[in-house]
C-alpha cells in the first residue's frame, strides 16, 4: 500500500502543474503577509488550518473540563456515602465537610451546576465548536481546492468569539453563587428567577452571555462554510464530486445558521423576563414568599424556541461525525463509500427532518397531546435515512481490504455506537413509550451513546486521520489503538447499564436515589458505572498525551499522501502554507471515492478520466 502512494505523488504535482487552474497566486503573494510575525501566524491567524487547530485544542481543553466534571458527579452517584473531602482543595466550599465526622459531601447546588456545565460544555463547546469548527475549517478549503475560506477575517473572528464565550463560561465557574445550575436546556422559570436557584443569578447571566457570543461564532463560521462550499470549489469540483465530509459540513452549517438564531431570540426573551419585568415565559408564580407580577407568559414557549435549535443541534453534532466516518471508512477500507448519492440524500433528509421534530422533546411537557401525532411520525421517519446510512457503512466494509489503524477503528466504532444509540431513539421518539421513559436514565443512555460517544468517535477518527495534515507528524498508533479499545469498551460499560436504570423508571438529574424506595435498588450498578467512567476518562488522557507528544515528537510524515487517499488535501505539500497549494490550484476530474476501480488501489481526484472510463456512482 505504501509503495503505491509514493509513485503517484510526483504524478499529482505534475497533473496540477499541467491541468491546474492558475489563479496567479504566486504573483499576488497572498501568503506573505500572514507569515510576518508570530502573533499573526499563530494567534490572530486568518489561515483556516491554524484556526482549525485553535478550535481543536480549545475543544480538547473543554472536553477535559466537561468530562472531569462528570467524574465528580459520578462519584456522588456511585459512592454517595464516601467522603469527598479530598476534593476540597479543588472545589472549596462546594464540598461541605461535617465538623464531627470529617466526611465531605458534594453540595446539591453544585451537583446540579456540574451536571448543567457538563452538558453545556460538551454539547456546545466540544461537539459543536471543537468538532465542526475544527474539521469544517480544516477540510472545506483543502478538500474543495480553495486557498482559504471565503472570508478569512470572519473565520478568525469566529474563533475569537468562541474564545470569548469560553472565557466567560470559564469565569462563571468561579462565582461565589456558582455557575448556572438549571440544566443545559435552561428551562424557565427555574432559569429566569434568581430566587429559584443560586445558579440562576449571575451564573445564568454569564451563561446566556457566553452562549450568545458562541452563537455569533457559529454564525460567522456557518456563513463562511456555506459560501465557501457554494462559491469556491475548484474547477471540476461539482457538488456531486464533493467528499461526504464536505456535504456533512455544508448541511451542518445550514442547520446551524437557521436554528441558532432562534435560540438567541429565545435567550433574548429570557433576558427580558429576567431583567425587564416582561412575561414571555412567566405566569402565575409564587416564589420566595411572594407572588410575582408576571402573568400571561408560557414556559412552554421557551421550550419550543430552545428545541427548535436543540433538535437540529444534535444533528449539527452528529452530521460532521458521520461525514468524517464516511470519509475515513472509505479511505481505510480502500473501497468507495457505498451508495454515495444515497448518503448525500440521507444527509439532506436528516437535515430537513431535524427541523420538524423538535417537540418530541416535549411530549410530557404539557403541550396538547394531539400535536404529538405529527412529531412522532416525523421523528420515526428519521430512522429511515439513518438506517440507510448504517447499511451503507456496513456495506462499505463488505468485500473491502481494511487497513486497521486508530482512525479506521474509531470509524467502525462510530457505526456501532450510532446503531446502539440510534435504535433506542425509536423507543423515545414514540410518544407512548416516552411517557415512561421521559427524563429517565434511558434518555441519558440514548443520547450519550448516539450523540455523545458516537460524535466523539467520529471526531477521534478525524483527529487520528488528519493529524498528519495538521501537524506533519503521525500520532502514535499503539497508543491510539489502546485508546480505541479502552473507549469502546468503557463507553458501553458506562452507558449500557443505564438503559436498565431507565426501564426501572430511575429519573435523571437526581442528586441521590435513596429518598425513594423505587429508585434505590441500583447502588451496585451505579458504582460500576462510576468506576467505568473513571477508567474510560483515563483512556482519554492517553489520547491527550499522545496528541501533544506527537505534535512535537511524533513520527514524521515523509510522503504527501500517507493514507493513499483520493481527495485534494493530500495533494498539498506536507506542511502547506497559507494558500494551501504553492503553485496552481488542482482541478478535479472525478469523484472522491475511486478506490479499487479497475484494479487500481486508488485514483486521485486530480487524475483525468481514462479513455473509456465512466463516472458511475
Amino acid at each position: 500500500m505504501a509503495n503505491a502512494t509514493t509513485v503517484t505523488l510526483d504524478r499529482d504535482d505534475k497533473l496540477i502543474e499541467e491541468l491546474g487552474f492558475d489563479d496567479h497566486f504566486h504573483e499576488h503573494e497572498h501568503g506573505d503577509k500572514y507569515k510576518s510575525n508570530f502573533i499573526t501566524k499563530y494567534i490572530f491567524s486568518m489561515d483556516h488550518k491554524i484556526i482549525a487547530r485553535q478550535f481543536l485544542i480549545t475543544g480538547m481543553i473543554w472536553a477535559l473540563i466537561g468530562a472531569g466534571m462528570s467524574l465528580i458527579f459520578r462519584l456522588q452517584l456511585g459512592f454517595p456515602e464516601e467522603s469527598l473531602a479530598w476534593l476540597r482543595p479543588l472545589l472549596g466550599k462546594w464540598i461541605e465537610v461535617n465538623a464531627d465526622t470529617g466526611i465531605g459531601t458534594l453540595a446539591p447546588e453544585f451537583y446540579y451546576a456540574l451536571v448543567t456545565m457538563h452538558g453545556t460544555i460538551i454539547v456546545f463547546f466540544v461537539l459543536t465548536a471543537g468538532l465542526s469548527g475544527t474539521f469544517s475549517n480544516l477540510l472545506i478549503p483543502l478538500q474543495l481546492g480553495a486557498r482559504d475560506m471565503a472570508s478569512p477575517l470572519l473565520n478568525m473572528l469566529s474563533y475569537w468569539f468562541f474564545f470569548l464565550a469560553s472565557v466567560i463560561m470559564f469565569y462563571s465557574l468561579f462565582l461565589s453563587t456558582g455557575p448556572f445550575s438549571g440544566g443545559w436546556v435552561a428551562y424557565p422559570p427555574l432559569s429566569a428567577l434568581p430566587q429559584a436557584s443560586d445558579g440562576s443569578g449571575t451564573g445564568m447571566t454569564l451563561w446566556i452571555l457566553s452562549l450568545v457570543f458562541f452563537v455569533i461564532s457559529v454564525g460567522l463560521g456557518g456563513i463562511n462554510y456555506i459560501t465557501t462550499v457554494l462559491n469556491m470549489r475548484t474547477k471540476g469540483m461539482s457538488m456531486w464530486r464533493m467528499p461526504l465530509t464536505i456535504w456533512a459540513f455544508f448541511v451542518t452549517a445550514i442547520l446551524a445558521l437557521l436554528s441558532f438564531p432562534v435560540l438567541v431570540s429565545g435567550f433574548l426573551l429570557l433576558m427580558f423576563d429576567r431583567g425587564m419585568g416582561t412575561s414571555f415565559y412567566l405566569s402565575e408564580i409564587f416564589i420566595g414568599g411572594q407572588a410575582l407580577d408576571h402573568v400571561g407568559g408560557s414556559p412552554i414557549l421557551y421550550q419550543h424556541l430552545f428545541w427548535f435549535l436543540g433538535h437540529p443541534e444534535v444533528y449539527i453534532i452528529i452530521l460532521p461525525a458521520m461525514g468524517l466516518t464516511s470519509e475515513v471508512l472509505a479511505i481505510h477500507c480502500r473501497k468507495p463509500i457505498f451508495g454515495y448519492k444515497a448518503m448525500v440524500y440521507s444527509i439532506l433528509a436528516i437535515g430537513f427532518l431535524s427541523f420538524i421534530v423538535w417537540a418530541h422533546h416535549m411530549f410530557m411537557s404539557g403541550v396538547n397531546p394531539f400535536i404529538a401525532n405529527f412529531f412522532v411520525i416525523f421523528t420515526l421517519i428519521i430512522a429511515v435515512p439513518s438506517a440507510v446510512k448504517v447499511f451503507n457503512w456496513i456495506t462499505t466494509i463488505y468485500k473491502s481490504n481494511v487497513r486497521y489503524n486508530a482512525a479506521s477503528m474509531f470509524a467502525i466504532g462510530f457505526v456501532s455506537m450510532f446503531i446502539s444509540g440510534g435504535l433506542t431513539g425509536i423507543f423515545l421518539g414514540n410518544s407512548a413509550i416516552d411517557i415512561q421513559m421521559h427524563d429517565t436514565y434511558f434518555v441519558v443512555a440514548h443520547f450519550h451513546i448516539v450523540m455523545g460517544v458516537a460524535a466523539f468517535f467520529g471526531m477521534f477518527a478525524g483527529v487520528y486521520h488528519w493529524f498528519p495534515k495538521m501537524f506533519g507528524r503521525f500520532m502514535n498508533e499503539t497508543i491510539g489503538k489502546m485508546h480505541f479499545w479502552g473507549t469502546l469498551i468503557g463507553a458501553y460499560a458506562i452507558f449500557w447499564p443505564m438503559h436498565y436504570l431507565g426501564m426501572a423508571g430511575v429519573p435523571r438529574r437526581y442528586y441521590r436515589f435513596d429518598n425513594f424506595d423505587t429508585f434505590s435498588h441500583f447502588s451496585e450498578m451505579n458504582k460500576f458505572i462510576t468506576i467505568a467512567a473513571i477508567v474510560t476518562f483515563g483512556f482519554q488522557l492517553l489520547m491527550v498525551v499522545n496528541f501533544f507528544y506527537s505534535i512535537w515528537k511524533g513520527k514524521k510524515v515523509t510522503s504527501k499522501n500517507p493514507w493513499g487517499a483520493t481527495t485534494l488535501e493530500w495533494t498539498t505539500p506536507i506542511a502547506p502554507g497559507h494558500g494551501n497549494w504553492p503553485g496552481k490550484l488542482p482541478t478535479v476530474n472525478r469523484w472522491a471515492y475511486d478506490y479499487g476501480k479497475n484494479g487500481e488501489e486508488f485514483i486521485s481526484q486530480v487524475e483525468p478520466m481514462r479513455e473509456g472510463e465512466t463516472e458511475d456512482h
Partner: protein
Amino acid sequence: MSTGLIILGCLILIVIVVIQIGKVTDLAAKIRGEEAVQYETNKRTANYMLLFLVGFLGLTIWSAWHYKNWMLGYGPHEAASAHGPSLDSAFNITLVFTGIVFVLTHIALFWFSYKYAGKKGVISTFMPHDNKLEVIWTAVPAVVMCFLVIRGLVAWNEVMADVSSDDEHIEIEASGQQFLWHLRYPGPDGKLGTRNFRLIKQGENPLGQDWMDDKNLDDLMPSEIVLPVGKKVRVRITAIDVLHSFDLPHFRVKMDAVPGMPTYFVFTPTKTTEEYRQSLKNYPEYQQPSDPKDPTSPPLWKTFEYELACTELCGKGHFSMRRLVRIVSDEEYEKWLKDQQSYYLSNVRGKDFDPRNDEVLGMEVQQRKQDFNTAVEKALSATTAEEKIIRLDYIYYKAGAAELDNRSKYELDNLIAVLNKFPKMTIEITGHTDSDGDDAVNLALSQQRARAVHDYLLSNQIASPRLRSRGFGETKPLDSNETEEGKAKNRRTEFQILTQ
C-alpha cells in the same frame, strides 16, 4: 494535599509510560518494516474485532437476562394501571424489532471487519452502489417504522384523552412547589375550588385557594395520595413556582407541572398496594431485608409502597420530592376519606385571615342545626332545671347594643323550629354579660338583649304566653372574668325550657 501529590505523581508516571510505549512501538515498526507491521496489525485487530463482537453481544444478552425483572410488563415490573400494559407492550414490540436489528447489524459490522481485514496483494471490490439493495433497505425500515408509529399513536391517543363529561371519575390535584408536592382532594362536593396565585400565603393558604368559592371549603389536603382501585382518576397537575413533573413510575404516569397552565393525566389504578406487594413476594430480590444493615427488618416486598416523584429539574432539592401513594379497596378509601378534615375548616375557619369570618356558611348552618337539636333533645329528657338551660351559641348583637346581627337568624330559626315542633313548650330567655363596665348598664343591656330575642320570636308567630325574658347582667358568670376566654363565655344568651 498528599492525595493530590500522589495523583499528580501517578499522572506523570502514566504520561512517561505512555510516551515510552509510543517510542518503542514506533521504533519496532521501523525495524520490522512498516508495511509488514501494518498487515500484522490488520490480522490482530481483525481477531480483536471478532472477539469484541462475541463478547459484546454475549454481555448485552446476558445483561438483558440478568435484568429481566426490570423489563417493562414482566415479572415484578408490571404496570399497576389500566393503560400501563399498552405502553409496556409498545416498548416490548419496539424492543423485539430493534433487538433484531441491533444483533444483525452488529454481526455484519464486526464480521465484515474481521473478514475483510487488509491482506497483502488484495484490491477491494469496486462496488459504488446497488439501487436494488438500497431500495430494499430504505423500504423495510420505512414499513417497520409505520407499524411502530401506528401502534404507538393509537396507544398514545387513548392514554392521553381527557375524561369526557359523563365519565365517572375522581378528580384530584397535585401542585409542585420547591421542593414538595401539595395534594388536594375535592371533598364531598366532588369539585375542586378555584385558586389564585396572588392569594398564596405560606402557612395560611399554600395553594392560593379562593375561600369565597364554596367549592374550596370542603377541599382536603392530605399528605399522601390514597385512591380506590379500579376507579378512573383525573389528576390535575399544577406548579406554584418552577416546572416540576408528576411521575408515578408504577402507573406509567408522567406529566409536567407548569406554572400558569394546569395539565392533567387520567389513569385507573388496577392493583392495590397490598396486591402489588403480594405479586412481589415470590421474587428473591424482594425477599431481602428492607434495611440492609438489619437482617431482622421486614422483607422488601412487605415494605413496598407506590411513590410519587418529580422528574423535571426544579432546583437543588429536585431529588427529594416524594409522596406516598396508596391504592386501597373502595371501603378503605371511603373510610379514609371520612377521616380527612377539610383544610379550610381545620386551618382557616375562624382565624384572623379567614375572609368569611362575618358570614355563616351553609355547612355550618347544617352543623349548628344538628348540634342545636341534639342539645334540645338532651334538655328535654333532663330532670333538673339546670340541665334544661341551653346556650344560644350563635346569637350575635351589634357591639354594645341590643340589636340582633343578621347572622343570628340561623340560630333563632332553629329555636323557632323547635318551638313549633313542641307546641306546648314554654321558655325563658335570659341575657348575661361579663363584668366589664358599669353594673347597671350591663344589667340593662342583658335585659334588652334577651328582649330582642323574645321580640324576634314573637314576630315569628310564637305565642306570647310561651315566652319570658330576663336579664341578669354580670351576676351569673359561667367562668372567671379575669381572662378573655372566660369573659367570652360569660357574655351569652340562654334559654331554659320551663314546660314541655
